[in-house]
């Protein structure tokens, strides 16, 4: 059984308009997505801004009111608040935020920030708690004198590591990492990613790694889902997504990643323009009449793509021929 199973998740925000301010329409931030996260893995959720990836993350951690669908954890649907309470759900599922400054209360000392989940979920003595906080700081590579300081006294990378320490404090099973390194410089980003990997190895934590940066996602994630306009367009292993992308949206996204090999850049650019061209031409084929992605169709055991049936059949066939 998977650690967490997300099934047909929908988060819609009502749009009110007209004279009586009635709900006339809704923004479909997340519009029916399903995927599973296995214990100990890093699951990548990739999409551009406005694709609904953050909303999905917030729904999984229980911060967002879900319109419909289910998120099963330990056999219970945690979209219901009562189930989250009875499971002590957030003891097991924590979150790392993008903006490290905003996610740490500026008026609290680091000790109180890291100890917050401990105080709510585990009842430790003062000394036990302090020891735990010191060890957590040590694990993310910070000195003990951070204890009584305030968040603004740290650099962005250090703050993000404090955020990681807080998320790890209760030894959760799953951490939702919402763009954890996009606000950081390259060298600091490397440091935070290394710590995240180290903690995963040592504590066996799963991550739902939400990012728009395909380079970072490739580095971190074994399984990846590509999100577009509230729907998933492609799910697969790292290998599937990066080497055999099937949906034009995925292809377009991959083609847009800047090429660091300078000698190949003309070639890469030509390729990107070609993909872009194909994207424009074949858009109707890959999206339904409302411009939304089709339901996912399984192509191989690990690889699913949002395709209309005829196209899926064709691709499956091609895949078999190639194999």
């Amino acid at each position, binding site marked *: 059984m998977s650690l967490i199973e997300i099934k047909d998740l929908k988060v819609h925000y009502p749009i009110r308009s007209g004279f009586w301010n009635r709900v006339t329409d809704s923004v479909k931030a997340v519009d029916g997505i399903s995927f599973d996260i296995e214990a100990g893995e890093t699951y990548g959720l990739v999409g551009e801004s406005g694709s609904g990836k953050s909303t999905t993350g917030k729904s999984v951690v229980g911060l967002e009111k879900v319109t419909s669908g289910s998120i099963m954890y330990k056999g219970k649907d945690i979209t219901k608040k009562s189930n989250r309470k009875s499971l002590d759900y957030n003891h097991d599922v924590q979150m790392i935020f993008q903006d490290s400054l905003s996610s740490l209360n500026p008026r609290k000392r680091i000790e109180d920030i890291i100890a917050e989940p401990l105080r709510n979920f585990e009842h430790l003595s003062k000394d036990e708690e302090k020891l735990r906080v010191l060890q957590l700081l040590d694990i993310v590579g910070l000195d003990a004198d951070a204890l009584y300081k305030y968040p603004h006294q740290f650099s962005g990378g250090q703050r993000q590591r404090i955020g990681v320490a807080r998320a790890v404090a209760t030894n959760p099973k799953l951490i939702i990492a919402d763009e954890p390194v996009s606000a950081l410089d390259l060298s600091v*980003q490397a440091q935070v990613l290394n710590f995240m990997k180290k903690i995963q190895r040592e504590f066996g934590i799963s991550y739902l790694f939400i990012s*728009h940066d395909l380079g970072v996602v490739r580095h971190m994630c074994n399984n990846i889902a590509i999100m577009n306009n509230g729907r998933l367009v492609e799910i697969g292993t790292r290998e599937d997504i990066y080497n055999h992308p099937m949906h034009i949206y995925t292809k377009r996204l991959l083609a847009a990643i*800047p090429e*660091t090999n300078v000698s190949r850049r003309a070639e890469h650019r030509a390729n990107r323009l070609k993909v872009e061209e194909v994207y424009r031409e074949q858009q109707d084929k890959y999206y339904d009449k409302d411009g939304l992605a089709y339901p996912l169709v399984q192509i191989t055991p690990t690889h699913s793509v949002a395709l209309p049936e005829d196209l899926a059949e064709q691709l499956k066939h091609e895949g078999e021929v190639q194999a």
Partner: protein
Amino acid sequence: MGSNSEFLNIKDVSTAFKINGKYYDAISHINLEVHHDEILAIVGESGCGKSTLATTIMGLHDPEETKINGEVDFEGTDLLKLDENGYNQFRGAKIGMIFQDPLSALNPLKKIEDQISEVMNYHTDFTSEQKHQRVLELLDEVGIVNPKRTARQFPHELSGGMRQRVIIAIAIACKPDLIIADEPTTALDVTIQAQILDVLRNIQKENHAGIILITHDLGVVAETADRVAVMYAGQIVEEGSVEQIFNTPKHPYTRSLLRSMPQLDKENDDLYVIKGNVPSLQKMPHDGDRFAPRIPWLPADAHEKEPAMHELEAGHIVRCTCYKTFKFPDEQGGATA
């Protein structure tokens, strides 16, 4: 790309900010040339002074809070000696600027057309009809599908990519020789980023302009730049063609940066981490190599006392001689920390 095509010559420029009554150098002794028909990328992490360099060239600093030394020679004029009025003859007309955040860089209460034609009010004697035509032309040039409609809209009605195109249209309205683009794609999605970079490159080709592209994204540099200057702690540490920088990087900082990028086929390895932090303005070291504290395993005598710029081959310049002996700790012969 002969040296006679250079039209912007930055000579020994330092900019200091006043903090609590004292001045601290944000950039020190910068020397750079920009040529026609090229994209010069300035790359570095936040706090290294890239944006300060851009705003210094544009003369956008508050003179009471900053102290600027050196010379910015633009087509024979030293910009730093100009008064406000003199500067305004260049800004918008011969130098255009593109900003990072396309939403806040546009006046929320003015229509797109007015914001673009404003720049022509001061630098051309176009009639309003000519200006209108030019606005539509520009919007078309930066790849906006329906220029007539967009011209009548307000910034909040446009998407991020569209807004950035409008900013570019403003910057190129008077066909400037120099365009300074300060992190033009940082706030955008990668597909939009690619399009905006294409627009920039096309404009440069068409107008024979020189572009200074400021970015922290090495991928953007590799895709777009002709020449690259790497900045660290307010100084240029390495300069060269894009091939020289990416294929044979010399300075330890350049090499460290390139090494800390997530790389293909090394998914399960840890990423390379540069030790320590970029020093803050007040704590900037003033003698010796500013990067030395972050490569502590390299013996002190490997660095020059007063690190100078050394030309290795045509156009490839490196600060300090430490590159000769520098090795990463895990490389053959590299000392452990």
